[in-house]
């Protein structure tokens, strides 16, 4: 971390990147205590409690990747522990001479493999449907374990031999292997949070449709996340099975384990590094207390159920984020926030970045970069886009105007596949793209802003920009995003739009105009050939409108092609050529600004009942 940039960080969303050495010292001390504990105490009660806590910590931390980062709440996480357990059980019974430890990594592989399959089949669902599917998955795996007797020995279960090592260190191997697995799990979580993959997952959580438009390959990201959330959990499950020495469907695939995992993650704090770990230790400790000191079974139900209710209502973000916000509130109390700070004056793109490819305008061929042919999309009886056709010449700033409800935004949505067109063709650079998904279109050079900005609200400005994926490859998912080359490029683009000072500000804290600027920097990260701007001048102050115009012109001078929807007529007429007029879902006129201004049909359309200049209000 660069110390000088830390100084201007008012409210970071990445607690573990903060050089709060005291915190690290405590974490280190806790780690040391954890490692030496079995050597200084032979109390098997606490050893057992820690062993179970470690298992749940791995499980919750894994869950955190798919549920905390990507926002897909899963109640089937316990299944991966069970699959790991069954892996070691089945193999240890088949190969009695081999050490069961050999099968622990394999437990992880099996869990990740099943996660891959589940990922494929559950991709179509989201929100509650996803939660239900994960529950169904858990029970289905259980039913299979019950009925596939030849492999699993059915409800009778599998018994593992007792470990043969010295009974004085009976729990040590389980204990230390789990510590190591947890360390690996945390390392992976920490690493993912810093990579393109992690940025993409959080983007998916915040706004999945938008994430697709900035080049994030949704299915691949989600499947990779699913596998990552299962890998170490499967290994921990294998150790769990060996530790219990008995594996049966009811115990291994109990829904209560999944509930405990999700509760641990929520209480500690989702999408944080340490939250799930702290939650797991806390919940398991409460669990044991409830069982040993507070009355047993029914108390445990009250405790778990009550905690879930209380956490969801009062502590939806969990302990760590709650403490974080208290601390940051105390730290910034009395100091002016950055939100009121001035937007930078920006700079010339050519001098500050090599991220955006610059083209000599004289080399631009005279051809259509984007061609739309007879595009259609109806919503019930509403013919939002009804046979629109037009072209955007390469190197132009093309305007798209029309009365409210004429289908401009829907047209944008069709072009970038936010909504799938019913019929018609879309060609980018001479290539059909109407069969492609949003991220594929983005990779081919299509960038798009939204009428009402759609930044990822819980991410910082910098993270919003580095979340963009210019092209797709598995390898680049593993690239570090929050520092290094990606961060540098993002900062340069933020400099260009004048928002560099805000880089560590959360997007939701920005003003509407500031959000527009960041969204522009965000899509520039794609280095698009064609930039679709949906009302770039809407709802922002005149100074900013002027600045917006300048930037568009500058980008255009370097060869960027624009398609702009805008209600601000002077802005459009001063900037765009050619201009297409859309009415009732079709293009009714095209031409230079002068031609459009003189076209009687256009004047008629605008002066008709529809002609109301909409007031755009910042959210």
């Amino acid at each position, binding site marked *: 971390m660069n110390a000088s940039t830390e100084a201007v960080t008012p409210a970071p969303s990445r607690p573990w990147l903060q050089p709060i050495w005291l915190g690290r010292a405590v974490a280190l001390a806790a780690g040391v205590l954890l490692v030496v504990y079995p050597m200084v105490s032979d109390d098997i009660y606490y050893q057992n409690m820690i062993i179970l806590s470690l298992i749940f910590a791995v499980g919750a931390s894994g869950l955190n990747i798919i549920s905390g980062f990507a926002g897909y709440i899963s109640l089937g996480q316990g299944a991966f522990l069970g699959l790991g357990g069954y892996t070691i059980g089945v193999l240890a019974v088949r190969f009695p001479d081999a050490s069961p430890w050999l099968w622990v990594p394999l437990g992880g592989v099996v869990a990740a493999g099943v996660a891959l399959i589940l990922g494929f089949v559950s991709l179509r669902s989201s*929100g509650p449907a996803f939660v239900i599917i994960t529950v169904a998955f858990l029970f289905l795996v259980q039913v299979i374990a019950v009925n596939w007797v030849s492999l699993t020995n059915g409800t009778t279960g599998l018994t593992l031999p007792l470990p043969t090592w010295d009974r004085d260190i009976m729990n040590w191997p389980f204990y230390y292997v789990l510590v190591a697995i947890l360390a690996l799990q945390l390392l992976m979580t920490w690493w993912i949070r810093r990579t393109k993959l992690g940025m993409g997952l959080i983007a998916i959580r915040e706004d999945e449709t938008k994430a697709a438009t900035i080049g994030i390959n949704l299915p691949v990201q989600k499947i990779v996340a699913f596998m990552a959330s299962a890998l170490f959990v499967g290994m921990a499950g294998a150790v769990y099975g060996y530790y219990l020495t008995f594996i049966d469907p009811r115990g291994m695939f109990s829904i209560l384990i999944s509930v405990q995992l999700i509760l641990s993650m929520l209480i500690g704090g989702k999408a944080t590094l340490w939250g799930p770990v702290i939650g797991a230790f806390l919940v398991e400790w409460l669990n044991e207390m409830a069982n040993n000191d507070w009355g047993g079974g029914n108390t445990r139900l009250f405790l778990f159920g009550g905690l879930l209710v209380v956490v969801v209502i009062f502590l939806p973000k969990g302990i760590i984020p709650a403490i974080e916000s208290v601390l940051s509130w105390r730290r910034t109390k009395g100091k002016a926030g950055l939100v009121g700070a001035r937007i930078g004056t920006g700079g010339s793109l050519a001098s500050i970045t090599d991220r955006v490819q610059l083209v000599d305008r004289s080399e631009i061929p005279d051809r259509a970069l984007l061609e739309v042919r007879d595009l259609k999309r109806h919503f019930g009886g509403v013919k939002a886009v009804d046979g629109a056709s037009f072209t955007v010449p390469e190197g132009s700033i093309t305007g798209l105007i029309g009365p409210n409800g004429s289908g401009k935004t829907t047209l944008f949505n069709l072009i970038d596949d936010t909504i799938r067109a019913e019929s018609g063709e879309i060609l980018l650079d001479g290539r059909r793209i109407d069969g492609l998904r949003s991220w594929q279109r983005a990779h081919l050079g299509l960038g798009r802003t939204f009428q009402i900005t759609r930044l990822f609200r819980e991410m910082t400005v910098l993270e919003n920009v580095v979340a963009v994926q210019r092209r797709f490859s598995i390898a680049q998912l593993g690239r570090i995003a929050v520092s290094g080359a990606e961060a540098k490029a993002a900062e340069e683009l933020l400099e260009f739009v004048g928002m560099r000072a805000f880089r560590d500000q959360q997007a939701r804290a920005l003003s509407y105009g500031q959000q527009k600027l960041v969204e522009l920097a965000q899509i520039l990260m794609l280095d698009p050939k064609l930039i679709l701007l949906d009302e770039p001048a809407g709802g922002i102050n005149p100074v900013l409108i002027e600045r917006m115009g300048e930037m568009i012109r500058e980008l255009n001078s370097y060869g960027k092609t624009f398609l702009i929807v805008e209600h601000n007529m002077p802005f459009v007429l001063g900037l765009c050529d050619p201009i297409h007029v859309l009415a009732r879902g079709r293009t009714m006129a095209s031409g230079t600004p002068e031609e459009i201004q003189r076209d009687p049909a256009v004047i008629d359309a605008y002066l008709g009942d529809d002609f109301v200049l909409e007031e755009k209000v910042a959210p």
Partner: protein
Amino acid sequence: MTELLQNLLLGLLLGGVYALAASGLTLIFGVMRVINIAHGAYLILASFITYWLWDSFGIDPLLAIVITTPIVFALGWVTYKVVVSPIRTAPMASTVLLTFGLALVVEGAMGEIWGNNSTAIRPSYADESFIMGGLFLPKAQVYGGLIAVVVLVLLWGVLTKTWLGRAIRAAATNPSSAELVGIKVSAVAALVFALGIAAAGAGGAITGVLYPFVPGSHYQWIARLLAIVVLGGLGSLNGAVLGAIMFGLAETLTSAYVSPSWATAVPYAIVFLVLLIRPQGLLGTRLREDAVAA
């Protein structure tokens, strides 16, 4: 042939009771976008209340519906006010977790009050059947099915023929517009939640007579009910009825012609397949949180 007919008949009778139990779940989802995981717990709670009325006061368990249902209705209303309404605007996944927590609390409470032993309600007719030709129709199931149909028709009448029903549908389709025309959406929501729970209560009174139960039985019920409403289409009452009947048949036929040990897999397999192939269910509208704001 008789065997098949008998199995179909049993499946249909089962489906009628399932339909009643599932109607509340789908109603609550349709209006409030809340998947009430605690639905099964309230169903079992109603079974226990029915047991208590039958055991302590000798009230016929099926007639006791007129007492049980209002009690459960009140409980549902209180539940809504205390725990559900604070998170009305939270993401759906949060409400799933919340109601799951609720289910655990209700389970614990039932264990404290009535104990964790298996409980059975056996009125005099519990194990008798009507015999028709070679077929048998268990009396409790026939009565239960008839009551289920009556309650469902009443519910349907309320939803389609009354001002309240129109208010409920308005609140479901467009809450903000409903507020504009003078519908208190929060009051409607509380009412719908209570009504949905009450329907589960009526179902619980019947199932308590049909099958023995323990506090933990609610897991099996919520799994079935979810499968039914997902199959029928979340939020669709007609869908729930159709789904319930198909589900009852599927379960019965799997048990009879495949193997009873796979019958319990039916709900999960159905959920899985439906959400994959036709996420909106048989009669439902598409279930998506991220409806495009265009």
